[in-house]
């Protein structure tokens, strides 16, 4: 017996990697870890490829029993993790002994934690990815798109790693204290002036209608004054504004095309921060120029090399 045995799980606990690409024209969504920065760090701690398959644990409710001694890594939210009752902090690798119980209870800070194993968790990729998309019935442990469930066994194939340590100064700030940065989109000029002011100056509250497809924000109603749109491709992080004026930020499991007007799209770093917001959280949006956001992103990627 090897790997980890799932003792208890929820529909929000999913095998993820960086998602599916090259097939968006078929209506297949991207999927993948919503907080990609934490996934990268969890893998980095074990010396894995940064996009290796991890477990995305949203809100807790997971209990695992080690079937062997192993070195694992944890990054992202503090979900009150413990190993045989001893508190376990994220942003580090740790040893588990055969028979020990690893539990994620509930959010202490942030919403999503990422658990990595040596070389990444085993599963047969579906269309190039292990990412679980329940709505499409794709990916996950058995390829059928289902969440982890009691009785599942999580395995990996790589030998024990030479773990790395993350210095306190390297731990990313994934809070939403600073505004989420938005690259302005094509329809920006067709929103009312007051709405543009409101969009980037009002606080927004994360609604309870928030999942891996999108996060609805509550705040002042935004008015689009342009003509009706014909459906077109939707980028990751697009902030679409349906007729009720309450924006929805589209995440990894979004539909591939859609016809609502958009303010723009969040930057990759801001997407990771949004993925850590719980319902009720307050956040702000700020505009950013594409070239600036591009430079930021390249500098961020450089830290893992």
């Amino acid at each position: 017996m090897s790997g980890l045995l799932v003792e208890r799980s929820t529909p929000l606990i999913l095998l993820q990697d960086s998602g599916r690409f090259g097939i968006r024209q078929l209506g297949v969504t991207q999927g993948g870890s919503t907080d990609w920065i934490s996934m990268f760090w969890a893998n980095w701690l074990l010396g894995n490829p940064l996009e290796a398959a991890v477990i995305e644990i949203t809100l807790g409710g997971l209990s695992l029993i080690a079937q062997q001694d192993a070195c694992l890594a944890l990054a992202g939210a503090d979900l009150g993790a413990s190993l045989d009752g001893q508190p376990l902090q994220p942003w580090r690798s740790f040893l588990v002994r055969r028979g020990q119980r690893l539990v994620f209870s509930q959010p202490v800070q942030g919403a999503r934690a990422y658990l990595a194993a040596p070389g990444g968790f085993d599963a047969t990729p579906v269309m190039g990815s292990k990412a679980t998309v329940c709505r499409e019935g794709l990916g996950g442990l058995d390829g059928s798109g289902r969440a982890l469930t009691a009785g599942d066994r999580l395995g990996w194939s790589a030998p024990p790693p030479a773990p790395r340590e993350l210095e306190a100064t390297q731990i990313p700030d994934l809070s939403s204290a600073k505004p989420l940065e938005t690259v302005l989109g094509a329809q920006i000029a067709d929103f009312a002036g007051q709405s543009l002011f409101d969009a980037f100056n009002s606080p927004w509250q994360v609604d309870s209608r928030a999942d891996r497809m999108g996060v609805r924000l509550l705040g002042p109603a935004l008015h689009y004054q342009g003509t009706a749109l014909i459906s077109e491709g939707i980028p990751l992080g697009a902030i679409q504004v349906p007729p009720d004026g309450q924006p929805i930020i589209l995440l990894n499991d979004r539909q591939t095309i859609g016809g609502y007007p958009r303010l723009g799209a969040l930057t990759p770093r801001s997407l990771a921060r949004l993925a850590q917001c719980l319902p009720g959280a307050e956040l702000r949006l700020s505009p950013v120029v594409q070239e600036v956001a591009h430079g930021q992103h390249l500098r961020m990627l450089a830290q893992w090399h």
Partner: protein
Amino acid sequence: MKIRIEIVAVDCLMVRLFDTIDEAHMPWLLAASRRLHECFGQGLIDLVPSYTTLMVHYDLRQLQVSKARGLIAQALDNLQPDAGGSGRSHSLPTWYDPCVGPELKLLAHRSGLSINEVIERHSGHEYQVFALGFVPGFAFMGLVEEILASPRLNTPRKRVAAGSVGIAERQTAAYPQASPGGWNLIGRTPVRLFDHALDGYSLLQPGDRVRFEAVSHDEFIRLGGDDTPLEAHP
């Protein structure tokens, strides 16, 4: 055709070729799509075609936005539509019946046609696949004759059976998998439309042409169809 290129995300550019939905645009969109693939090569992560646009998702590690714009301009320079029609032709056997197509009667009533005439008109036309979306392999096709055009249901069904054939406004489609749906259902096809184990994954691809072929209940069952009735919408 006035081509516009717009930034829509840090790593995505929208190439806007047209402003209206028209079957005549498809050969242009397909040619543009092919040229973009050639020009971007490994720098292209995804290309999302839709009715009037192509969204280019490029690799930020390889390309600056100015370079990406340049590649798009290069790809679309002296563009010619794909000649001789494009894509493949398909025939989708379809059992048109009120028990799997609860809106057949509604469409007949609205159009003043008989149910048989609705079936003849829907199956008597070759449709163009404009785009795939909503769920994997869901092909938005058109254009349906004006007389059959019908708005989406006010309240979408929570579950539409796989293979259901429907109409929304002047478009038609078949649901590849059971899912929620708000289209007016008129029949069901036994054909498997999306399977990740199949080469190409999706039977229908953007630019393909599709006919619905009316078949009997016996033929539908022989082809592997599931005739579990769908309740009429309240």
